[in-house]
């Protein structure tokens, strides 16, 4: 009964927020609209981070890699093949998924802090490649002058902030809706089960690495699609857009929003990015200080919001049996890795 009420309330809040986002461009100024469009792209990457960190239990700092792959693929397609948004979106998603698939062997067996460091390395390597592959990426100065996009064949190009924002909003809404639907299927059930207790899931006969690979590729596709949105929102991309600070802020945003909840992650990531961008405009020179204080304050304001980060979190030596552990200990399934 109470659950039903909460569910309804949540639905109502979500609907209200969506309605607010739809009318936003007519209420706020161009700057806010432009920033919101860009933030939507990053929030979508946040969703992919949450899918891996919270739902699949693989905390990641590397989603900037498929994000960048999608963005550059979209830019190349946009300048040489097609200015149709749907085409660019599909190409970007495929590029992100392919890159994620290539990195699957690196991440799928690792857990906890180890995944974090491997994905960090992947992200850094991706940025290095982007900076050096000048013929395609334009090097460290980035690619400017990317042609405007038309959402669908026959539609006009997106020429102003409102159009670009609404396009981004539609894409993000559709993709997030798809993710939420996906999580309600057996695939989502299995991912949540794996996060709760991976050893148990294996003991039931499930091919956990296969599921994690699938989640990783799906998250890569989402991040890739987000890359295409960044191109639309910003009409410029450079390796700096995909650096470590982006991935760190996204992970922290997802943590603030509650890693296990896609909606929370969306809001959290959007909030962190929006506040960062806003601070650099209004408090020149003091943005990092204020941002840092806000992060610290967030931990105290939302102490329980971040407590749910569990599952495969914790040191990786824990679930694997250690030679020096007592014979009786090594069968412990350790559902929660608080040491």
């Amino acid at each position, binding site marked *: 009964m109470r659950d039903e009420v909460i569910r309804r309330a949540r639905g109502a809040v979500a609907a209200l927020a969506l309605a607010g986002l739809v009318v936003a461009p007519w209420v706020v100024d161009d700057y806010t609209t432009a920033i919101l469009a860009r933030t939507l792209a990053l929030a979508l990457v946040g969703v992919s981070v949450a899918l891996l960190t919270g739902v699949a239990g693989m905390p990641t700092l590397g989603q900037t890699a498929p994000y960048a792959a999608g963005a550059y693929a979209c830019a190349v397609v946009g300048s040489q093949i097609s200015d149709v948004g749907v085409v660019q979106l599909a190409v970007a998603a495929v590029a992100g998924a392919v890159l994620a698939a290539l990195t699957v062997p690196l991440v799928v067996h690792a857990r906890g802090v180890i995944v974090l460091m491997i994905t960090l390395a992947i992200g850094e390597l991706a940025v290095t490649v982007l900076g050096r592959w000048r013929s395609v990426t334009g090097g460290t100065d980035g690619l400017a002058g990317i042609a405007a996009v038309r959402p669908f064949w026959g539609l006009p190009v997106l020429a102003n902030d409102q159009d670009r924002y609404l396009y981004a909003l539609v894409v993000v809404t559709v993709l997030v809706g798809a993710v939420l639907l996906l999580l309600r*299927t*057996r695939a989502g*059930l*299995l991912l*949540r*089960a794996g*996060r*709760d*207790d991976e*050893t*148990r*899931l*294996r*003991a*039931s*006969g*499930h*091919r*956990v690495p296969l599921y994690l690979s699938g989640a990783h590729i799906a998250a890569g596709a989402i991040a890739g699609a987000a890359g295409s949105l960044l191109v639309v929102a910003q009409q410029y991309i450079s390796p700096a857009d995909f650096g470590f600070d982006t991935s760190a802020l996204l992970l922290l945003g997802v943590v603030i929003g509650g890693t*296990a909840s896609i909606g929370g992650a969306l809001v959290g990531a959007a909030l962190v990015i929006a506040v960062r961008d806003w601070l650099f405009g209004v408090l020149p020179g003091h943005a990092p200080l204020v941002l840092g204080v806000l992060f610290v304050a967030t931990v105290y304001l939302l102490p329980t919001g971040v407590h749910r980060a569990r599952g495969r979190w914790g040191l990786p030596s824990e679930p694997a*049996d250690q*030679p*020096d*552990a*007592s*014979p*009786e200990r*090594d*069968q*412990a*399934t350790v*559902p929660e890795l608080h040491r």
Partner: protein
Amino acid sequence: MTGLLTVEDVSVRYGSLAALAGVDLCVHDGQRHALIGPNGAGKTTLLNVIGGSRKPQHGRVIFEGRDVGRLGPAARARRGINRIHQRPAVFATLTATENVVVAALPRLTPRRRWWPGGRRRIAQHRAGPLLDQMGLTDVATVPAGHLAHGQRRQLEIAMALAGRPRLLLLDEPAAGLSAVEVGRLVELLQALPRAVAVLLVEHRLDLVYALSDTVTVLRDGRTLAAGTPDEIRTSPLVRQAYADGVA
């Protein structure tokens, strides 16, 4: 009669400590087989070896005539070896029904596993009866993390059965249960279909004698004795071992 499960000359060492030193074991179809022995005898390690979560340094594990030594726990579970853990292992944020559905999925054909809408059918036809059998129908929609210890134990048994096991490995299923819950557990285990063989590790000898038809005694990583419950009960060797090793 061939064994369902044959363990041949299995040895496991933790550093300098030999947990298992050349153990042989045979479990037949439908057998109720108990493993007993003092603390540190290697019972749980042997279950780990059979379940696939511990690789022995030496020896073979043969299940249904095939060497499964190279397979991990997941692959063994798909072949029919299922396990109940010492600490009930359930998916805390999933409901009881979802827990059983997850456990049931691997043994379904791929088509049925991913058939749209099939999840509800699995829940109705597979999970429902099992939860009913375990007396968990009332809590079917409660997240498993909110269940009492005894209920989680029952849920785990339901999950193990949902995987259509040929061999069920039980690691101290009565640990932490109240007297009432233990009584119910014994009823449940006695009512298991004969198609399921059971390998039970248990400290409480009254449960062992009530549930098993064959008993193997381990001590210091070796097989000390094997026989029917009556033979074991009267064996001076076993009495001696227990007098030394167990309070």
